[in-house]
């Protein structure tokens, strides 16, 4: 089943120099293992290919039911150097929530996951 991250998680992002961070938080605690399993570093790297110029790092915070991603080379130089509308990476959060995951039907049903809208 296709599941979009925006339906199972919320997020906030910020900046450190030319790196944007995106904290992704499970909407329900029981959905956190799903994030750990499917929202991998590789998957996120692939998602932002062509959008950022650097690598992706992932950290796990099971205590907060959250993952933290660092997206390097995301901000056109960052801070005051950046010419981007989103120079401080404030809405990379919602860009990551566009991610669509393919979850085995049985697992999706068991967790009560909502199906992707489109």
């Amino acid at each position, binding site marked *: 089943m296709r599941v979009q991250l925006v339906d199972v998680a*919320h*997020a*906030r*992002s*910020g*900046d*450190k*120099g*030319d790196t944007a*961070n995106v*904290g992704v*938080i499970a*909407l329900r605690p029981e959905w956190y293992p799903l994030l750990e399993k499917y929202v991998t570093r590789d998957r996120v790297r692939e*998602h*932002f290919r*062509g*959008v950022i110029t650097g690598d992706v790092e992932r*950290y*796990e*915070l*099971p*205590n*907060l*039911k*959250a993952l*933290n991603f*660092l997206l390097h080379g995301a901000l*056109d*130089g960052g*801070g*005051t*150097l950046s*010419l*981007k*509308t*989103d120079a401080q990476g404030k*809405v990379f*959060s*919602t*860009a990551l929530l*566009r991610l669509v995951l393919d979850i085995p039907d049985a697992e999706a049903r068991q967790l009560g996951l909502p199906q992707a809208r489109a």
Partner: protein
Amino acid sequence: MNNRGAKEIVKVAAGQGFWGDWLEAPRRQVEGGDIDYLMLDYLAEVTMSILQKQKERDPKMGYARDFIGAIESILPSIAKRGVRVIANAGGVNPPACADAVRAVAEKAGARKDIRVGVVTGDDLLPRLDELLASGHELRNMDTGEPLATVRDRVLSANAYIGSVPIVEALTRGANVVITGRSTDTALTMAPIRFEFGWGTEEWDKLAAGIIAGHIIECGAQCSGGNCLFDWRSIPDLADVGYPIVEAHADGTFEITKHPGTGGRISVPTITEQLVYEMGDPHSYITPDVIADFTSIQLAPAGPDRVRVYGIHGRPATDKLKVSIAYRAGFKAVGTLVYSWPDALDKARKADEVLRARLDHLGLKFDQLLTEYVGVSATHGTLAGPPHDVPEVQLRVGVRSPDRAGVERFTRELAPLVLNGPPSVTGFAGGRPKVEEIVAYWPALIDKRVVQTTVEVS
């Protein structure tokens, strides 16, 4: 740290999350209910350089002037309710900020109610050449380059300082503490540590104080502002309540806000703020302690109240972070709006024409960035193809060390209104402004090199 046992709960309220935050917030925090401390955070990474430029023009400036208005609005409460104020409003000139505070207190007939503590020593600009000469390279933490490469363009250099000098000012009886480049989190941790007499090696407690500071340092961003979780249901943002830490001596604390205010304090609103600007969550490095965000436990504790506990910390490093600002060339950004039909195609065509003309003029830029606002400016290709959009804003920016080239660019947008693609509007603001770029250079320095001084008067 001589106030041990004085209070069971210490209440620290956030009244300002950055310079430019809601002017109403400080007074609302002081008058809306019982608090012990008002914490005001004014400094972002590039704020110091703006203040340095102001100080060069006038030696009495160089601090966050909003703070003086804030003090004026809460003077009666400082006296009547015993609320103490801690702010990094001093910028690059804490003594001048203190003079201004004393002057407004004098004018209001409240001079006797105010004891101002001033923390200095974070400003490394006067010592920069001496430091470089003695082997402190101040390499850029991101690029590894030594500061020598941009030394002649440096505008400001400030070490991020921790809670110790603030605690000293409170110990000596200050009820308004003004710092320069304190860490945002120390402004909250210091009064809690002072009240409970926490020692320099009580790592878990110090880390808890830092995390309390991180949660409230952006003001209402933890109490319903900018909150994505269930955002439509967040009540009464017009009357949003700013956050308050209620700290206990054992290092646990609760986050809440004044009764009757808008916004929301819940596990999701706090979690969103905890992950904001996060790096490696195991190591949130501050001058006082390294806090471990993977140890934080959150639990609902009643309406608009979240309990925070379980926090661990580790010994601080022997380094301080230094915030350096330097001149880094010029930039300008201009916009035009194209309407249906085929709005995006028209905007793209205009960009093509503009780039050809810049090319014909022989202009070279370090960066030339085109965005289509309404289509792809924030999410790029992830946004997918547009569907017959009613309008698109073409937004073009350039960056260059050459001011004249950037000036010339600003003259090339407006002509497109008459000599480019059709259905164009939205140029009433005139041509774009050329801005000097002041860039940020993060570095580390040995702690021993930085000596802070506290004056209370």
